């Protein structure tokens, strides 16, 4: 299995969750491989029982609920993993690494 390829799918799924501004993990939470690297997603464990760690930057909102956001990211990432390769990923740990405030919409 190409882990970098899988990681790309998972990063995309996490980024699509409303409230997630960015999927980024510095050097620590990054999947490395010959096909490149994916920041914000790291896969660990043997291929058949992978565990994914996903690191996200959240956008501030008055009704911010980071536990709910974490669950939504976990759900989206787990679904993407199951669609890509059924039963490969056995759990998704979410790190809310940063919080940004966007007074003006970013261009």
């Amino acid at each position: 299995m190409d882990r970098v390829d899988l990681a790309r799918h998972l990063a995309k799924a996490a980024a699509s969750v409303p409230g997630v501004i960015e999927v980024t993990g510095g050097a620590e939470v990054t999947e490395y491989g010959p096909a490149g690297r994916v920041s914000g997603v790291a896969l660990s464990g043997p291929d058949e029982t992978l565990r994914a760690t996903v690191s996200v930057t959240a956008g501030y909102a008055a009704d911010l609920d980071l536990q709910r956001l974490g669950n939504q990211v976990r759900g989206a990432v787990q679904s993407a993993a199951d669609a890509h390769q059924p039963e490969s990923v056995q759990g998704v740990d979410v790190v809310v690494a940063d919080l940004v405030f966007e007074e003006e919409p970013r261009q």
Partner: protein
Amino acid sequence: MATAQGQRGGGERESAPLHTEQGTTTITNSVVAKIAGLAAREVDGVQNLKSPDTGGAMSDIATRVTGGDERGSGVKVEVGEREAAIDLGMTVQYEVNIPRLAEAVRQNIIKRVQSMTGLTVTEVNITVSDLFFPEDEQAARRVE
């Protein structure tokens, strides 16, 4: 970075929101600090936040160097698996009742951090490091 990772499996005594069978959610110190800083600034009478350790100098430098936003500066946070302890330094406007203002800040931080992160706030320690007089600002402007 505080982390709740690695605590999976049957040993847990209850299913807290931080832990699910499907994985954990970790909220870093800097995120909690920003939420707490924002909650403190919301309270009328708080002039500014300053690190109680350094009088604000270090956090100001850190903010400038990193280019990061300063919402979390002046706030020190320790995050455990389900709990957070918060130290905060602030300057307040001259005419306020400091104990009552501090209590309002404490309650607002507890409310915001708990609702936004799901963490239980065990303590909020507040240092009032200076008073702000409106004349100060005017005098500073005249000098400029």
